[in-house]
């Protein structure tokens, strides 16, 4: 076997929520029997943005906020890849917020894990769009919830939330998200509450604020309106649902486009007859 890049130790602070996300992801590849060379882990910029260095796969460190377009481009280019995008709340909601909206809308078959700690860890603790109101830092405004955002777009097909403090649930949800994308159903969004112990240490605080949907009687993740109502009601109490929040029907973008460019034969010998035909249509 060729030796590939040596895995390094994470440089995260001891206790950082991001460790759990890493474990869940790496183990999911094994659980789901994903051949590592068919897996791509794309990450944003941030503490979260180093996760790909610790997983045997094709790893890519995207620009700040651009992990989703890069991941969608990779998936459309080669739909047989298992494409995981990961990154922070700053990366995905602030600078990358527009792309998130369009990923929901257009439904490319990638899994996106938001490692959400309500702050900018790497740049040392500024407020992010998911910071609680009153968190120190310049950003005012009430915290955006990416799952509510997903619910507002009719193209959305998969929304779940995990918590770094609950490894079992996180494993289940990571598997489910990846399976959703692999199955050609489209964009799987997994929000992970992943506390930053250095700048926004809320472990003590989160557990009581999370509502596991498995414990909610009769909750139906196929009902978008009900999902919105419950999430809004919880939000009013300062809480958030965890578990599978919503799963809808949909055709992944790559399937809708019939995409398979990586399989195309681009050898000139194979191509030129058709190119010639196209060119001939321009003859005066």
């Amino acid at each position, binding site marked *: 076997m060729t030796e590939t*890049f040596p895995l390094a130790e994470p440089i995260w602070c001891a206790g950082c929520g991001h460790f759990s996300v890493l474990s869940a992801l790496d183990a999911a590849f094994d659980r789901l029997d994903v051949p590592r060379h068919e897996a791509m882990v794309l990450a944003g910029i941030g503490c979260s943005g180093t996760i790909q260095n610790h997983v045997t796969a094709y790893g*890519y460190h995207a620009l700040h906020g*651009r992990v989703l*377009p*890069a*991941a969608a481009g990779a998936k459309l*280019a080669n739909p047989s890849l298992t494409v995981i995008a990961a990154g922070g709340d700053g990366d995905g909601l602030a600078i990358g917020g527009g792309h998130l909206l369009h990923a929901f809308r257009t439904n490319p078959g990638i899994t996106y894990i938001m490692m959400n700690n309500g702050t900018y860890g790497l740049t040392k603790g500024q407020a992010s769009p998911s910071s609680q109101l009153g968190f120190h830092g310049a950003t005012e405004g009430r915290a955006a919830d990416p799952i509510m955002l997903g619910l507002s777009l009719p193209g959305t097909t998969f929304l779940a939330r995990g918590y770094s403090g609950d490894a079992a649930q996180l494993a289940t949800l990571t598997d489910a998200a990846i399976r959703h994308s692999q199955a050609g159903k489209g964009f799987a969004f997994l929000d992970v509450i992943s506390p930053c112990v250095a700048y926004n240490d809320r472990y003590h605080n989160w557990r009581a604020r999370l509502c596991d949907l498995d414990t909610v009687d009769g909750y139906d993740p196929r009902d978008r309106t009900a999902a919105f109502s419950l999430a809004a009601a919880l939000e009013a109490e300062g809480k958030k649902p965890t578990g599978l929040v919503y799963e809808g029907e949909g055709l992944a973008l790559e399937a809708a*486009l019939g*995409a398979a*460019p990586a399989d195309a034969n681009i050898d000139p010998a194979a191509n030129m007859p058709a190119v010639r035909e196209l060119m001939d249509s321009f003859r005066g």
Partner: protein
Amino acid sequence: MTASTERRIEDVNVIVSGQGGDGSLTVSTILADLLRQRGLNVYTERDVLSRIKGGVAVAGLRASRDVRFGRGDHVELVVSFDLEGIEKMVTQLAPDAVVVYDDSDVPMPAGLLPANVRLFAAPFARLAVRKLGRILYKNSIAVALATRSLGIADDDVRHGFEQRFNRLGPAILGQNLQALDLGFELAEEMGLSAGHDTVEQDGRPEGQLQITGNQAAALGFIAGGGRFFAGYPITPATEILESLEGWLPDFGGVVWQAEDELASVNMAIGAALAGVRAMTSTSGPGIALMQEGIGHAGSAEIPLVVVDCQRGGPSTGLPTKPEQSDLNMMAFGGNGDFPRIVLNPGDPGDCFELTVEALNLAERFQCPVYLALDQALSQNLATIAPFDLDAVTVDRGKRLSAEQLASMSEYRRYAFSDDGVSAYSVAGTPGGMSLVTGNERDEFGRVSTSPENRARMVEKRAQKIESARADLPRGRRTGDPGATLGLIGVGSAYGVLLEAMEELEAGGVSTRLLQPRTVFPVLDETLEFITSCERVYVVEHNATGQLAGIIAQGGGDTKRMRKVLRYDGLPLRPGDIAREIIERESL
């Protein structure tokens, strides 16, 4: 040209002007078809405001025995449905020009037209409404006067109408033919009688293409194996996106209209990581937005082709007008030092070839490659020889297969090497798992701040450009090899300079021309061309002489360089250039 049909037409410039959206521009399409059928090379130019309806829209059409990539200096025939169109053109009229004018609304003011210009004015619109019940037919009436003045046989015109309007049904065809006959009658009344057909028949070889630079680049992308394209609409680049939307799926490729330019460039990057040849295209504002992504491709060593269909800047600027004012941004934009290549086609054939070449260079040297077009080159339709498809090659550089990887004991994505180029594997290839990042990194792609590694990585990336030099597209040269006066120009300046050279020669000034097809890095051939001349006029469509500046930074002898600049939004014109150079030479 005169309105008589006694002479053979060798070179005629026609302008059709009307209100945008009133169909008057189809007049120029019909005339272009007829002239093309007569064996002439046709070049058409659009001049539309960045607005949808209303406002003057002007189409320029040139038909010539020689291949031309630009309008000439004089207009021989104007067909205008409004006075504004004529007022705009009056200084460009040839001494013996013909003006066909619809005076339904405004009569031609006395004294507007120069003495020798022949005016054929009639209320086409009113006639069309009165006699045919629909204003639209004014266009067909005008065609009759135009073709008479051009000496095209009436029957040929009728035949052309049949071809064109048949698919719209017999009623519409019939009405248009009636309008045409009305026009012929009018012509007869005005003394513009049918002559024998004297238009060139042998000017143009069989099977020439009629194509724009944008279409040619899109075709080149497919021929060169491009299979992923992401873009966002913007004038004058949109036709690349739209052409590929129509064509690429048939070749197994994907085209995607992204939410913005940040997305499109980063999607192309993602596709490249998955091993698919990827491109994006836009104009100046979009290139500005893509600067971070393009620099990232340069840093992380990702193959990427970016087409910049330049338009009038700065900012939103003059969206529909030609300019070459993003050259600096392409050569020097982005943060940090990173390798990049800027290719500059001069005509649609070049657009095709250099797009193929850009795809090869991007993969061989794993860096961004710009293709710099400009609005005139992007959107104007030229007659040109078919592309040499047999010459198309696909070179994927040091791309590793699963087999190669299996035989290696170790694979380092960013391995140091003599030519600065590392072997690469793409996502999906067994055994080639690797880390790609825009942070500084070691050979394995792991983020590193080690000063020694850093210095070597910077040098490695710079080395790629040195290694590429030998393979970068060479310029085209023409003119008198002994001339001491040189001309340099790129993009749409190329074709205009070819013609300016003829005028210069006629004016007693002998010149030779270099169209550098690689503008950045500056090649030795460019420096040598300059030192081999006494003086070199660098002709560009911008206000500051960006091309001359880039060449100067690349070591060009500034003492020998002179700038010839245009920045008023009008296309470059050979006469203006020749005149300016002759003037400056005679000082």
